[in-house]
């Protein structure tokens, strides 16, 4: 029983291969009869005995007829497509080169830089505004200056004083 089933499966598989090959052949068959005639005799016999395989011939042609309504994308690809791809590659490479330069970081962080600057300005201006008012410091007057150790109590001698004192000494 198992052998019979296995044998049937093999025959079905061979039939499917033959059908696929015949369907892909140069001149497409229009009717199930034509397609069956293009198959080897053993496959024709199998189609007559196996209901599923017999129906597969008609199904293949019907499915093909249905799908004929769809456009084939492989046939419609534009002739300039390769050029467009190469141009896109060149643009991407240029972008990657730009990203590699140190200045590329500036626009990336521009928004954050603006935020940080605004925050700094706000903090500094708040601090300046709220700082307690200190009166302007007056320059110290001559009387108020503390006496230095080196300061003499005697007023500084003028040249005339020196001359007078020398004359007094000579007397």
């Amino acid at each position: 029983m198992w052998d019979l089933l296995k044998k049937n499966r093999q025959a079905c598989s061979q039939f499917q291969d033959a059908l696929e090959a015949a369907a892909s052949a140069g001149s497409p068959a229009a009717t199930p009869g034509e397609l069956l005639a293009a198959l080897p005799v053993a496959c024709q016999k199998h189609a007559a005995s196996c209901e599923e395989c017999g129906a597969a011939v008609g199904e293949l042609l019907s499915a093909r007829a249905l799908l004929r309504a769809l456009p084939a994308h492989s046939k419609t690809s534009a002739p300039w497509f390769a050029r467009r791809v190469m141009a896109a590659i060149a643009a991407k490479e240029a972008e990657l080169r730009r990203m590699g330069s140190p200045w590329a970081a500036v626009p990336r962080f521009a928004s954050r830089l603006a935020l940080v600057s605004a925050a700094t300005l706000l903090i500094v201006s708040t601090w300046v505004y709220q700082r307690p008012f200190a009166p302007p410091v007056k320059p110290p007057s001559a009387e108020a200056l503390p006496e230095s150790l080196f300061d003499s109590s005697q007023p500084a001698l003028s040249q005339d004083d020196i001359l007078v004192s020398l004359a007094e000494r000579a007397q």
Partner: protein
Amino acid sequence: MPRVPKLEPIGLPPSGEGVPARAGKLQEGAHDRELVRAAQADDKEAFEELVRRHQHRVMAVAGGILRRREDAEEIAQQVFLKAYFSLKRFDQRAAFSTWLYKITVNECWDMLRKKKVRPLVYESDLSEEQAHQVLASEEKGSMEPDISERLAAQQRVERLLEGLDERDRLMLILKEVEGFAIEEIAEVVDLNANTVKVRLFRARRRIVALAKKRGD
């Protein structure tokens, strides 16, 4: 640095899955490896060549998930940008295309998550191109096949596709609309080829049943 010779962009997948197709795929893989090595050594022309070679596939996968051309284009550009800036970390253990598909699928799911919409095109959600088509067809009169009928049919199918699991829907679109091979779909959805085949069969059965049920 020697310039890598320009290669023809990959066209749509070969119809058969035979030996010549597989040999061609191996050759393409080898060219890709060469171009990736050159691009990893800062050869921009090599990367541009890689973009040219894979843009159709990436657009197809993105379009399969997002279902809007504008979104698919935007995602495709993002995918190549991402690939360019992580190319030095790509160790070439997997094929370049596989790596690119993974980025595409992840970017698409991210976009859908961000937009929080299901990948469905509604009447009010016509792309710029579709709007131009509608206007142009209105100007031309009834000589051209009716664009509004075509758009209505497209929307009907989009609605039917909504009834499928997201992965099954992507597989079905990649196979039947974009013309991917089973192995390529397996790379995109990260499943093995046999599982993809079985799931495709089931998805076809389901969409046909839904269409019958809705009378389309």
